[in-house]
């Protein structure tokens, strides 16, 4: 047991503890939650030589300002993130993503902003010392489940660390970030609820990501999708990436903190391989959807996993 901890000097907009997610509880009303960007989460842990299941801090847009009040650690930030390290002599170093750094007592990490992306990740060597609930440290703010009483990180919170710095080396990895705005989807269970022209337009028109976007869902704005069967269905279990269309005809992509059940028709479902790409898009971005078949989606996921493995293989000593 050590008493190493960060003090939160600024919380950031939406900073939460997350890991792979909490599974096997959706039938009890508990959504999986977990890191929005699975790839960046895995890389964050790898750079500080953690187990891939270790919890990290996820931040969105503006991140936190953290002071290592006690102890020594090693940390890494993944994503496309503007941040600085301010040491105890008040010297400022501009931070580089996708590498690890030593952090000494009194040093601060100032995570200023995510650039042309929504989410970034902070990992520390050994992990954060927070209490898991049902085998996960993921925070589900909507239900107040997870560490920090299920809430976002707040100013003056203390964030304890599991270990002191042990590892000598620092590491870097070459991370490629995809930019394309075409999101591949599989047709949804109620695809045929929509008019012929809407079915065509869904795949040919652009949809703008609106400000009403968070960890739970992404509201889109574009050509109204006309439902010709029924705008409500019996409530049924929700799958991550489902694109539901309520009566107003504007699609909503259900994301990691989705409700467990819902009763709107689903026109399509984002393929697993393109999920990280989608959730990193910021409001105002125009995206379009491309229909693929199941086999193609499975192949794309294989490539996605291979890309993560290749990225992890580029890890090298600095």
């Amino acid at each position, binding site marked *: 047991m050590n008493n190493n901890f960060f003090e939160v000097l600024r919380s950031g907009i939406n900073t939460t503890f997350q890991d792979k997610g909490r599974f096997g*509880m959706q039938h009890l009303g508990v959504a999986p939650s977990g890191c929005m960007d699975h790839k960046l989460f895995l890389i964050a842990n790898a750079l500080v030589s953690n187990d891939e299941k270790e919890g990290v801090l996820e931040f969105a847009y503006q991140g936190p300002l953290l002071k290592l009040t006690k102890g020594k650690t090693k940390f890494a930030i993944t994503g496309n993130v503007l941040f600085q390290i301010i040491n105890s002599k008040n010297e400022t170093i501009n931070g580089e993503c996708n590498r690890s750094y030593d952090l000494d007592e009194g040093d601060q990490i100032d995570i200023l902003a995510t650039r042309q992306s929504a989410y970034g990740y902070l990992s520390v060597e050994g992990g954060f010392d927070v209490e898991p*609930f049902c085998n996960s440290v993921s925070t589900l703010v909507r*239900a107040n489940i997870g560490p920090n009483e299920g809430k976002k990180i707040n100013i003056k919170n203390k964030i304890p660390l599991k270990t002191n710095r042990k590892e000598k080396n620092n590491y870097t990895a070459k991370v490629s970030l995809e930019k394309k705005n075409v999101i591949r989807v*599989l047709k949804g269970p109620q695809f045929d609820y929509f008019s012929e022209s809407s079915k065509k337009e869904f795949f040919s028109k652009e949809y703008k990501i609106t400000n009403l976007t968070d960890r739970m869902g992404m509201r889109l704005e574009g050509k109204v999708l006309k439902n010709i069967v029924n705008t409500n269905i*019996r409530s*049924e*279990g929700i799958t991550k990436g489902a694109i539901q269309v309520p009566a107003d005809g504007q699609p909503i992509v259900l994301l990691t903190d989705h409700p467990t*059940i819902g009763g709107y028709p689903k026109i399509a479902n984002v393929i697993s391989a393109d999920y990280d790409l989608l959730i990193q898009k910021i409001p105002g971005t125009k995206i379009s959807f491309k229909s693929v078949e199941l086999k193609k989606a499975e192949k794309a996921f294989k490539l996605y996993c291979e890309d993560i493995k290749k990225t992890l293989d580029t890890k090298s000593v600095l």
Partner: protein
Amino acid sequence: MLKKLSNIGDCGIVCDFGDEVSQKINTEVIKLFHYVRRQTSDRNLEGILNCTPSYNKLIINFDLKKINATKILDFLKSINFSELNLSQNKKEWTIPICYDFEMDLGNMSKVLKIDKDEIINIHSKTVFFIYMIGFVPGHPFMGDLDSKLFLNRLKTPRVKIAAGSVGIVEKFCNIYPYESPGGWNIIGKTPTKLFNKNDNNKPCLLSPGDTVRFKSISKKEFENLDNEQ
């Protein structure tokens, strides 16, 4: 009976049991739910992340790294549905309710033209079946109420309903696990906590397929039970 199997996205399977909302259909859903969960815990089926029953469907979500839609469909097609059973997994609960906390009995009595006491009598004699749990943690959707008590939602939902409030709409009865907004007709309140975030082993009291009977308690008993927790 299982009417249709299809995929939802590349990591989900929909088991569709038809359009009807009845205990008979839902029982079939829950039987399959228990079976899939048992096969998962016995390690006969790898990579299942979530299994979510609703009135007439079971959605199975899986880890595409470990299994795929074809393998799950093959598994589902190999099941002999007539051999699945519910009884060994089903629990029967008695949940205390204090009807003194009602908010809508007066209005219900007027609309339904049934005495308040008779409404309470019918409600407390009903053995409720849990169709599904969801929306928020621990929140049960139960049925079936006697058709004599069928009511619509409130025209204007309330901004705040206390945790533990018991409400009815149409043939359904629910318990609000948390303080929240709501449009159901509130007939009482239970001191029983449906979801405990400090219990890592069994945080949720109820499970889909369980049955619930309400037992009327006094305000004094309510307070005693409430203080014990």
